[in-house]
């Protein structure tokens, strides 16, 4: 594709969009699909035809709108009218009243404005508003302009500089400066170089990355292409969980579309830059999301992490310099290039710029996919966006950062969400999960649940993680069955320290976090289990007491 062609196409598409008075966006993401979103979509298409408003109303199949609690969700533009729990029988009325008569059906609208008020959508800028399977939709909203700009008007070093100045940090969890990482890869000797987008979001309760891929796959592809140009790579891989069939399918089609349009392949935009992307499917191993394990998995081996150094930037895939970033990191890049690093750096807080996507779940009134500026407090997320815990219940704790994130109590609700603050409190940014617990959740039981998850997902290479976590799980399990003594708490802490400090990779190093933070902030619950043999939340001791004879 020539630069001019992109401009013309964008213009044509934008005009086409304008030619419709209304646009009905039906969310067909994994959150809404199981609840009949596709049927609703075709019902809308039929209704529009039947009522003769085909010419003025466009019905689009889109990705996640972000309000998963009201699935299936439908968004009508202009005016962003959000309809909740749309079933096929409601469709006709919506079209008749809203489109034909111009009167939104108030009773069916999702009246929760607070949910969106504190959110800021950069990564999810197009989510729910474009058809992910139509590349033209993406182009119409300025897609692939950033790639064009990078290739025709910027040097690779210039691109890196811009990303570095923006202060963007890796969204996969560790929070390493993206610009710096890119520079390492750019300077590393060896060829070819590779770019890997990490979409192995194995964390239970986290679906931010998946939703992004389903809603706006081209933002990821464009970000990867820009990164490849910056670091001098010619080949890219997207490593995606195979448990995400819709994301896999969407990405597959998006890559094909990008290829046929010439955004991937040889001599992109008639420059010397060539780049192509291949999908690689995971197969159900959480640890494969680890930076060095992902390499092993793409190379067709057991996803066992290896020690660093050497870092993948110097010796990655097949020993070649490799850039690994989370898909969310990549999705930020096109916007940064278009709007400038200064603009991006002005969002969020100092040392932690931009936004972060979170899947907000658990005992909260408005679960869903949210994107918030860095520095927002946990309280704002849980109570203002999330609408607090269900009526009649009391907030107990919030977990940030997936299975190895810590649990934070009520008095830390004014903690700002940024990498440093979270780490200090014992939580982590992780790949973006926020789980809210109320007074019906037992903290000992919850710590046990996450420890069990990590036991299942440990690759088994190093002793602290393989054997240590299992012992930790057994001790916690004992607590929930009436076994154990107060001295065991010290033993647990010592064991946790060993696992945290001596494990090989991030999985083991963070796996004790749930236990350590619950011990720190909710020690009284442990004591209640051990001393009084009682579970304050009424969850444990269901399977009888301890084994015979054990004090």
């Amino acid at each position, binding site marked *: 594709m020539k630069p001019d062609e992109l401009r013309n196409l964008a213009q044509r598409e934008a005009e086409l969009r304008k030619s419709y008075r209304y646009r009905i966006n039906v969310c067909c993401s994994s*959150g809404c699909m199981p609840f009949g979103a596709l049927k609703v979509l075709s019902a809308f298409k039929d209704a529009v035809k039947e009522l003769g408003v085909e010419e003025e109303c466009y019905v689009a199949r889109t990705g996640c709108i972000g309000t998963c609690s009201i699935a299936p969700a439908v968004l009508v533009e202009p005016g962003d009218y959000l309809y909740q729990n749309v079933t096929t029988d409601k469709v006709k009325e919506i079209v008749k009243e809203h489109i034909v008569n111009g009167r939104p059906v108030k009773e069916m609208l999702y009246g929760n404005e607070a949910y969106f008020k504190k959110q800021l959508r950069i990564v999810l800028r197009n989510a729910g508003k474009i058809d992910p399977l139509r590349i033209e939709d993406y182009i119409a909203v300025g897609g692939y302009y950033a790639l064009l700009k990078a290739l025709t008007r910027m040097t690779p070093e210039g691109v890196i500089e811009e990303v570095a100045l923006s202060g963007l940090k890796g969204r996969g969890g560790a929070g390493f400066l993206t610009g710096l990482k890119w520079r390492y890869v750019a300077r590393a000797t060896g060829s070819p170089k590779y770019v890997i987008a990490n979409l192995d979001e194995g964390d*239970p*309760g986290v679906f931010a990355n998946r939703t992004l891929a389903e809603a706006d796959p081209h933002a990821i592809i464009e970000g990867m292409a820009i990164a490849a140009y910056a670091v001098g790579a010619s080949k890219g891989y997207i490593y995606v969980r195979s*448990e995400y069939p819709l994301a896999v399918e969407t990405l597959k089609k998006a890559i094909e579309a990008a290829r046929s349009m010439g955004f991937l392949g040889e001599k992109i935009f008639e420059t010397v830059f060539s780049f192509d992307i291949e999908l690689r499917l995971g197969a*159900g191993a959480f640890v494969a999301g680890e930076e060095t394990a992902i390499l092993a998995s793409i*190379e067709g*081996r057991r996803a066992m992490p290896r020690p660093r150094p050497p870092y993948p930037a110097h010796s990655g895939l097949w020993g070649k310099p490799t850039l690994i970033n989370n898909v969310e990191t990549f999705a930020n890049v096109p916007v940064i290039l278009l709007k400038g690093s200064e603009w991006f750096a002005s969002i969020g807080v100092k040392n932690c710029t931009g936004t972060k996507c979170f899947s907000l779940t658990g005992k909260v009134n408005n*679960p869903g996919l949210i994107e918030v500026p860095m520095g927002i407090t946990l309280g704002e997320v849980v109570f203002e966006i999330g609408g607090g815990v269900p009526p009649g219940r009391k907030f107990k704790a919030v977990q940030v950062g997936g299975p190895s994130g810590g649990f934070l109590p009520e008095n830390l609700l004014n903690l700002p969400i940024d990498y440093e603050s979270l780490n200090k409190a014992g939580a982590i940014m992780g790949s973006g999960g926020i*789980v809210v*617990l109320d007074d019906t959740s037992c903290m000992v039981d919850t710590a046990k649940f996450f420890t069990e998850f990590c036991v299942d997902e440990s690759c088994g290479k190093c002793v602290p993680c393989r054997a240590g976590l299992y012992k930790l799980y057994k001790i916690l399990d004992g607590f929930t069955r009436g076994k154990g003594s107060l001295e065991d708490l010290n033993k647990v802490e010592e064991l946790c320290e060993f696992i945290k400090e001596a494990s090989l990779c991030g999985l083991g190093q963070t796996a004790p976090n749930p236990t350590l933070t619950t011990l720190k902030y909710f020690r009284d619950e442990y004591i209640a289990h051990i001393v009084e043999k009682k579970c304050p939340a009424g969850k444990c001791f269901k399977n009888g007491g301890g084994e015979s004879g054990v004090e």
Partner: protein
Amino acid sequence: MPDTGFQQVGLKVDRRLTLLENAIKKHQYKKDALLEILHTAQELYGYLDRSLLTYISKLLRLPPSHVYGVATFYNLFKLKKPGAHVVTVCMGTACYVKGAEEIVSTIEKEFNFKRGETTEDGRLSLFVTRCIGACAMAPNAIVDGETIGKATPEEVLKKIRTILEAAKVEAR
């Protein structure tokens, strides 16, 4: 192409085998395509049995223990034939917090088997998975591909019974 394969390991020559060979050819017999090949093989055959793994190891010239090690490392690959009907209960955080464990243990008790297993008559398998991503509708259970949101143990049991009954009638 090396035809050391199928007769030796006892694989039937059929369309599935052709498709599998094509996939391997497409990957140019590259060893690092193992994961992709295993995906394809499982899609075609439903599960990975010994003969299939031996065949793949021969074609890709990989040590059998390596292929077996990879196939058993990843949860997704099934080495045993799954049951005719499959129930998968999501055990993601949101689902666990909202009572997924009760659903699983109810099914276990009712059909007298454990998660990850298939009933003796081969009619039902029970799997747990980590997060299917429908957290807002937690807890979720998938019965033969159909998702039940905000599920209760009774509801899931009922669904399973209906399916098993229907299958029985069909068999007659």
